[in-house]
């Protein structure tokens, strides 16, 4: 079969999967190395979903390499309010994504490489995958002191975390993915991964903060491309397949039929925020109104990302109780989200008595309640 040169790096996946032709494509039946050309976290997560749902991995394994533009990715059962600083993220256009695998929160940017190892459920073996990565790194730079821990982290010099792991097991397919810090922005990383929200009580999976370091700091000659290639080479060697990386475009619906829907689902509010396990916020805040400092207490319970219970305690008679009740009543069922709350509060003001003092107190209260979100 004649392969046009333009297709050499961008094969349609079904050719690779179905045709058991001669030559190097034969080994595609035993293993595949894919690399995404996209840096959009939702597109890349959609690829993982697609492979999990559609590929037959009985006798084949797949390695997927990907990197994202600045994003915070939380685990399947985590609470974003507990894990990161949503305010800074909104201001700096850093996206928030929830992945389908478990585990903790990570910061992604182009200096952080993601590896996903797809296997059948029977061949799911995380430690082997991590050992593969370690071998690849040692092969690239023998002086690097990297090792895997029993918590499936990778440590540099025994102290600094350079990789975290998470996994997803389905009915027949499993995948294990891990990050690898090469040259990520550590300042951004530490500022977004610190939650400013107080008083949260939740059973969501917590993250374990750790000291991190970039491989680049240890050896400035290392680049992400070199590391990805080294891991791909080691993978090819272990699975006895060609060291050939197939570039894929996650936006191509013809290669990945149905991927657009997966992409859309990962971006819905219901998935990102709505899948947060039930939690409550009990805290107090101070408001400055006309030279006096006032204290307010708030108790909010959130389920499926929506407010289930809302109690606000204000200094007596500061705001007519009817108005405070109106706010509480309307917040119930509403999304635990600042834009929804602003829209709701502003709209309700239209039907309140038109009084400058009341309006400014109401606005002040609402803005403070929003800082919890």
């Amino acid at each position, binding site marked *: 079969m004649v392969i046009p040169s333009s297709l050499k790096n961008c094969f349609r996946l079904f050719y690779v999967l179905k045709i058991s032709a001669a030559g190097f494509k034969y080994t595609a039946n035993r293993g595949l190395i894919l690399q995404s050309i996209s840096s959009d976290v939702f597109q890349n997560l959609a690829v993982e979903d697609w492979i999990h749902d559609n590929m037959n991995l009985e006798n084949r394994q797949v390695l997927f390499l990907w990197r994202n533009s600045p994003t915070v990715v939380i685990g399947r059962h985590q609470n974003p309010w507990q894990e990161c600083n949503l305010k800074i993220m909104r201001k700096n256009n850093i996206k928030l994504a929830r992945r389908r695998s478990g585990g903790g929160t990570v910061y992604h940017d182009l200096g952080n490489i993601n590896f996903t190892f797809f296997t059948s459920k029977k061949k799911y073996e995380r430690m082997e995958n991590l050992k593969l990565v370690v071998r690849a790194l040692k092969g690239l730079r023998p002086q690097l002191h990297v090792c895997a821990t029993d918590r499936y982290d990778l440590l540099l010099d025994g102290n600094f975390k350079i990789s975290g792991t998470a996994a997803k097991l389905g009915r027949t397919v499993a995948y294990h993915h891990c990050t690898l810090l090469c040259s990520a922005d550590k300042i951004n990383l530490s500022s977004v991964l610190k939650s400013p929200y107080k008083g949260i009580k939740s059973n969501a999976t917590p993250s374990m903060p750790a000291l991190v370091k970039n491989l680049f700091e240890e050896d400035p000659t290392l680049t992400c491309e070199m590391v990805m290639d080294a891991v791909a080479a080691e993978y090819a060697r272990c699975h006895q397949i060609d060291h050939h990386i197939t570039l894929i475009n996650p936006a191509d619906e013809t290669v990945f039929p149905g991927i657009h829907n997966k992409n859309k689902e990962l971006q819905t509010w219901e998935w990102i925020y709505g899948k947060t*396990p039930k939690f409550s916020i009990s805290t107090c805040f101070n408001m400055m109104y006309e030279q006096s400092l006032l204290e307010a207490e708030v108790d909010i319970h959130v389920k499926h990302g929506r407010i289930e219970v809302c109690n606000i305690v204000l200094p007596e008679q500061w705001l007519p109780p009817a108005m405070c009740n109106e706010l509480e009543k309307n917040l119930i069922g509403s999304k635990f989200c600042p834009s929804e709350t602003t829209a709701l509060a502003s709209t309700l003001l239209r039907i309140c008595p038109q009084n400058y003092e009341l309006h400014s107190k109401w606005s002040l209260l609402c803005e403070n309640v929003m800082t919890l979100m």
Partner: protein
Amino acid sequence: SVKINTLHCTCKLTIFFLQICVHHIRPCSSVRFIKSKYISIFDKSAFKFSHQHTSFRTSAISNGQIVQFKLSDIGEGITEVTVKEWYVKEGDSVSQFDSICEVQSDKASVTITSRYDGIIRKLYYNLDEIAYVGKPLVDIETDALKDVASEEDVVETPAVSHEEHTHQEIKGHKTLATPAVRRLAMENNIKLSEVVGTGKDNRILKEDILNYLAKQTGAILPPSPKPEIIPPLPKSETVPAAAKDRGTKIPIPISKPIVFAGKDKTEAVTGFHKAMVKTMTAALKIPHFGYCDEIDLTQLVQLREELKPLAQVRGVKLSFMPFFIKAASLGLLHYPILNASVDENCQNITYKASHNIGVAMDTEQGLTVPNVKNVQVCSVFEIASELNRLLTLGSAGQLGTNDLTGGTFTLSNIGTIGGTYAKPVILPPEVAIGALGKIQVLPRFNGNGEVFKAQIMNVSWSADHRIIDGATMARFSNLWKSYLENPASMLLDLK
């Protein structure tokens, strides 16, 4: 472990067989034998009838049996997991391969799927409880008890969406069939390679499986519930047919009901939408009257073309709205009652000093109305700049309370989406609102009686008839219109 399961199952079934009266939920009307010609009309699972079963299975068919579904091995020697989310609740019906719950163990999230079709009868764990591998997870009441379903069976079929057709290679021969058809075949122990497909690309349809079964069992199968479109008999053929062949019977089409499986979905009105319900209910208590007109924007279109690059240089995108807003403010200076507010019982009117003109926007949330503050002291450029800021914040869902409150008069540019005339609803506590239609190029007559190309836009005003009369609205509209049709006249009155 497969062996142990078999033994376990056989023991259970034997006990079941002996204690028939205890486990039967519906009385068994007839005991079915292999290749029976009778199928009970009460039995919905007629299609699942297999011709290779043993006696205990026949009695299991019409009766639900509670099966304990155990948490299967997850790998890596894991013995316990935490239940993180239930996808089903007691009483829900599930199909084989449906997701039951999500469990987590040491950074791995696992989706547990059902091995049977049936109804969930019991959940053994609450959220965040520890579940044990090998212990029961849920109880499922299932109609047909299959042969011991080992982990190995039907592995070739990955969980795909029902729209997708999966290709399955059996003995090198590709067979096309939907997962539902595939399941039907599997339940009846039919090899797909032995069935003749009559669908497109030799696809195997449900009918093909049923026909195959019918040939095997000689049974009369009930009609398929799949909707069929029966083509009407062409009229031209019936007349000659009647004349020529009186003996031939014209086939009477059996009208089968068209079945639609969609379900209504009800959800509560919450949050922002709930607030809108309250606002709109209050709004419609205001007696509205409408007044519409048409504006010739030919000169304004030209002016904007000239000014657009100047604004661009200053980093601001100039649309038509800043002109509409400024012209409205100039008009309000002459007709301040349109910028007023009345109290609840319409006992007092407050004439607002600031012209905070709201601009209706369509965002992800729905209708959002931020306002430009103090238009009476802003230049057209300043208004444009502020609009840019509000639009950017609006599309990012980051408008603040200050931007969204304090409006005194509103313009809604529905024309950007489409339409000509509208009947806008006043947003309390305001007393007037204007809806602007789209700009169309239409033929009009000029002063010399010649037809020329005019840029025409329609405006629809609504006002509170308790305090505003038609004449006031009309005069305001005329003034606003004159400013826009002759932009140069705005210069005279600009403050």
